[in-house]
């Protein structure tokens, strides 16, 4: 995969943070890590110009980067592809793919009307939910029993530490450091130095009413650390005949053990950094949605082959996070792009 990572990285703007860009939330994190001997490092992120030197506060980017600094596929690749002839057909929802010997038909609804496209090769890239949904609605569940299975999501838990002085974690650069401790990796988790808007921070706090408001009143005094668990891929994406998805994703005992190890480290860091109270939120979420159409060598245990082709089909491919056979424990974004590049190079041969 090395050449593909190299090419994708060269097509993006990647920024490695430096000490001068650290905000108080990051300084508290690193100070706490240092006191416990936990290794940490500066993040490398796909961003071109976040405007922090002009006073921009990046917490707003959690709802979508309005500066187009974030190097998403839409910013870093799709615009270039459009210049090369790519045509985007928006507001079109695919509900069935129908491959045959030489071509593949794609049936979709476009503003309520049924439309059909046909191509020599069709590549699904709807992500874990989207591609699994399209495949299930196309009737593949009976042919490929692993369709929808092996779903993983890196469950994430955010804890809040309350400081006596303002932390203002919502100001300036959003995130600059993360844990780089090999022991954490071995134990199946990593720590991230994140934060969020009041609406999202409000979701972490389980109390309601006045107690909740009192916590939010201390918003500026919150430091925040998140544990992301490298989870077992026991989840399942279920899809009914109308295309409605249901996700079954329990935390396994191993996931809980990993999470608890992470909690222990967060508590150590926050306490060492001087937090007078720690809010130990049990609210969790998954941001990295992977699996459902996993890659493998046979149709009994996977959905696509190592050449990205759906087992038994010559004209239908999948290239997105749904083909991940398990959770890598790191942000999957760069690998998704690199997998797409690898398939593109194969098809161009």
């Amino acid at each position, binding site marked *: 995969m090395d050449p593909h990572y190299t090419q994708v990285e060269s097509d993006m703007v990647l920024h490695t943070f430096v000490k001068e860009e650290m905000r108080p939330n990051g300084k508290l994190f690193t100070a706490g890590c240092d006191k416990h001997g936990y290794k940490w490092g500066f993040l490398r992120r796909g961003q071109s110009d976040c405007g922090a030197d002009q006073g921009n506060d990046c917490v707003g980017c959690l709802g979508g980067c309005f500066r187009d600094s974030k190097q998403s596929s839409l910013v870093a690749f799709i615009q270039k592809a459009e210049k090369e002839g790519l045509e985007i057909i928006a507001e079109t929802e695919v509900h069935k793919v129908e491959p045959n010997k030489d071509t593949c038909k794609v049936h979709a609804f476009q503003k309520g009307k049924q439309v059909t496209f046909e191509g020599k090769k069709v590549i699904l890239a709807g992500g874990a939910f989207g591609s699994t949904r399209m495949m299930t609605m196309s009737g593949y569940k009976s042919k490929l029993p692993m369709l929808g299975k092996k779903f993983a999501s890196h469950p994430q838990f955010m804890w809040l530490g309350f400081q006596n002085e303002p932390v203002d974690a*919502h100001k300036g650069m959003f995130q600059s450091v993360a844990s780089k401790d090999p022991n954490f990796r071995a134990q199946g988790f990593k720590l991230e130095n994140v934060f969020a808007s*009041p609406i999202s921070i*409000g*979701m972490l706090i389980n109390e309601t*009413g006045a107690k909740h*408001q009192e916590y939010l009143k201390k918003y500026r005094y919150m430091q925040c650390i998140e544990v992301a668990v490298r989870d077992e891929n026991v989840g399942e994406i279920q899809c009914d005949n109308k295309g409605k998805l249901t996700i079954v994703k329990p935390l396994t005992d191993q996931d809980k053990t990993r999470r608890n190890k992470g909690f222990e480290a967060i508590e150590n860091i926050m306490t060492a950094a001087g937090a007078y109270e720690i809010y130990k939120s049990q609210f969790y979420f998954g941001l990295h949605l992977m699996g459902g159409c996993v890659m493998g060598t046979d149709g009994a245990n996977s959905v696509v082959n190592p050449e990205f082709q759906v087992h038994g089909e010559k004209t239908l491919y999948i290239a997105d996070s749904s083909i991940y056979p398990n959770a890598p424990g790191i942000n999957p974004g760069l690998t998704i792009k690199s997998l797409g590049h690898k398939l593109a190079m194969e098809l161009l041969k």
Partner: protein
Amino acid sequence: MANLFSTRATKGLLKVGEVYCPKNGEFPSFREAAGTAYLNKIVTNVPEDDFGLLSIVLTIFSFLPGSIVHWIVKACANAQNNPSDGVIPSTLRLLNLGLKGLCYAVYYSEFTNPNYTGRKPLDIIDYHVNRVTN
């Protein structure tokens, strides 16, 4: 078809919003501050089925006494804090997510009630961000 809250569902939201965000010192009540005129904008992209179910729940809330709504909110919070498997706990967690998300998205946002002239929740918590465009 666009997602539109009925008057009844909006009444139910105001009732449950009072549980999440009551009048408390400087904080205005949900009823005072919430910009319900913006509600339909917030739920524009919610899948139709999910929106339909949420509307039903809120409509039911509009008929229930406040104490019962309070009890339901507490049960949802408990299901979140002590997670367990099964249809009822997972449904309560889903309800917790939907109700909290909707109430806080209205209360802790820039889209407050245009007729409300007091200090807004975001000002009270001293949340101000700069958005510098290119």
